């Protein structure tokens, strides 16, 4: 086994109950991700991108097949174990940012460290560092409602990165952003991917995102229909 393989998926099937029968959202998916990849799941709406990302993030379980992250099986985890896994090793970035509206920028980023009971001084340092990565040190005390979409997503990136996770899962992170902001956050993520060797997996149908991906996995109707290395990734970045 390659010890740099961080995620393994074998013959993943996901069925959703619909009416009396079921709908197959993922059909026999076998995939591996290496540490430090900047990969993306692309495909039309309904092709199963989010479903697959949720399984990798241990927010959902496959109907059939094997899945593991860092050699830890995702099958049969208790709620507590999967919470632990997400808290320590997996960062999420959502299309809708999902910041806690009652918390300041600083507190939003600090949140996952509080969950892990990181001591105050360490926490402060890590939060400020993460806000530096995304260039928001001047907004520490702002509330999410006062931020632009691009700024909000940068806070979400800082929040997902502050715990230095192994994997960051980003579901349509640019869908609500204009072109300038999309490029800005993609550049930020690409930089963090290179500097911190964090594995990024996107789900997207945004051309702008694809430009940055080093690997593009195409899904259609719950099946993998393409898995290619993107030779000129980053070349077109502004």
């Amino acid at each position: 086994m390659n010890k740099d393989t961080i995620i393994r998926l074998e013959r993943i099937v996901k069925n959703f109950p619909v009416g009396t029968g079921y709908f197959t959202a993922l059909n026999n998916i076998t995939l591996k991700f290496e540490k430090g990849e900047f990969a993306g799941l692309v495909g039309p709406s309904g092709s199963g991108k989010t479903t697959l990302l949720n399984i990798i993030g241990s927010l959902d379980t496959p109907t059939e097949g094997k899945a593991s992250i860092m050699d830890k099986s995702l099958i049969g985890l208790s709620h507590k174990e999967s919470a632990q896994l997400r808290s320590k090793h997996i960062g999420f970035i959502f299309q809708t940012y999902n910041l806690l509206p009652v918390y300041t920028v600083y507190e939003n980023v600090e949140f996952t460290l509080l969950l892990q009971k990181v001591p105050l001084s360490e926490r402060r340092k890590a939060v400020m560092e993460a806000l530096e990565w995304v260039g928001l040190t001047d907004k520490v005390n702002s509330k999410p409602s006062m931020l632009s979409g691009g700024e909000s997503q940068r806070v979400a990136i800082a929040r997902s990165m502050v715990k230095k996770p192994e994997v960051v899962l980003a579901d349509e992170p640019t869908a609500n952003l204009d072109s300038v902001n999309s490029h800005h956050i993609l550049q930020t993520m690409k930089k963090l991917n290179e500097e911190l060797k964090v594995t990024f997996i996107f789900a997207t149908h945004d051309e702008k995102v694809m430009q940055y991906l080093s690997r593009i996995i195409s899904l259609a109707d719950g099946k993998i229909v393409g898995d290619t290395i993107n030779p000129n990734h980053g070349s077109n970045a502004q």
Partner: protein
Amino acid sequence: MIAFKLAYRNLIGAGLRTWLNVTVLSFAYVVIIFHQGLIDGWHRQGLLDLKAWEVGGGHLWHPAYNRYDPITFQDSHRNIDDKLIKKFNEGQIAPVLVVQASAYPDGRLISVILKGIAPRQEIVSIPTRYLADNNAVNAVIGTRMAKLMKVKEGDNILIRWRDKNGVFDATEVHIIKIFKCDVPSVDNGQIWLSLENLQKMTGLVNEATYFILSESYNEGKTDEWKFIPPSYLTRELDEIIRSKRGGGMIMQGILLIIALLAIFDTQVLSIFRRQREIGTYIALGMTRPQVIGIFTVEGAAHSVFAALAGAVYGIPLFIYLAKYGISFGFGDMGLTLADTLYPYYSLELIFWTVLIVVLAATIVSYLPARRIAKMKPTEALKGKLQ
């Protein structure tokens, strides 16, 4: 810790709805504490009055004596032995002789109870010192009795009674003093004479029906006399207090339930509206019990805010009422009840009220939050449940 901070922020952030809930719940606190405090104050005052005017440290009764049944009076007196005389001289006991009689104020007939009491006694507050002169038949009566008989100090009234042989006798008694007290049972229907006079009038020389004991009396019971503890003598008041307390609880319960329903409703709504937030908590690595904890604390925090809000307007109100009392102008209801009641707010009352309300608020906050345990984070993140 996280839960408390989040709860605080979310509640402040929720604005009007939070303050409505908090206001209603703070009313519940204030009304419960006000009403229970009023009843506690009445009880305390009533017990003090009873002790001061009637009960002392308990009684010693002739075994046949029943204060509610005048038929028993004829056969419930006996000789005061030397031991008891000694106790009386030490100020430990006050002998009382009870005789049934009729009074004829203005020619009307009123059934009365004559009570002969040693004028020197200082155990109860009845102004018996006015009865010291045994050359005249002087009497002290309470304001209720004075009103009933339409007499004033200085008036004379005719009374008629049977002596020990059952022979009727009659005399004029001189009302030397009218006293005011909040204990109806030493006032209504009672005419207080000196013990010696009543003994002479009835031929029951050196006899008594019961003794009022001082607080320091600790002789225990004797064969001739039955010890009646203070708790027996105050049980009527205790009974009334119990029923008043119960009656108040219905109203307080309804108010509390309204407040709790408002919190419950808020919880249901906020859990429904904040699904995406719930999904985010789980994605960030919180366990479901932790998320339930956040929402439970948030709902329960209403009760803490309400306690603070209630304190802001309740404490000045309570202090004012405890100082100046509340005048209800009840008139006479035959209850041991002063004209002005001074509510009494014990720490115990406040502690239990806060504890019960916080507990109840926690439960109604927890119940809807349990739903989170069954939520799928993937669905919650879409914000599309239900």
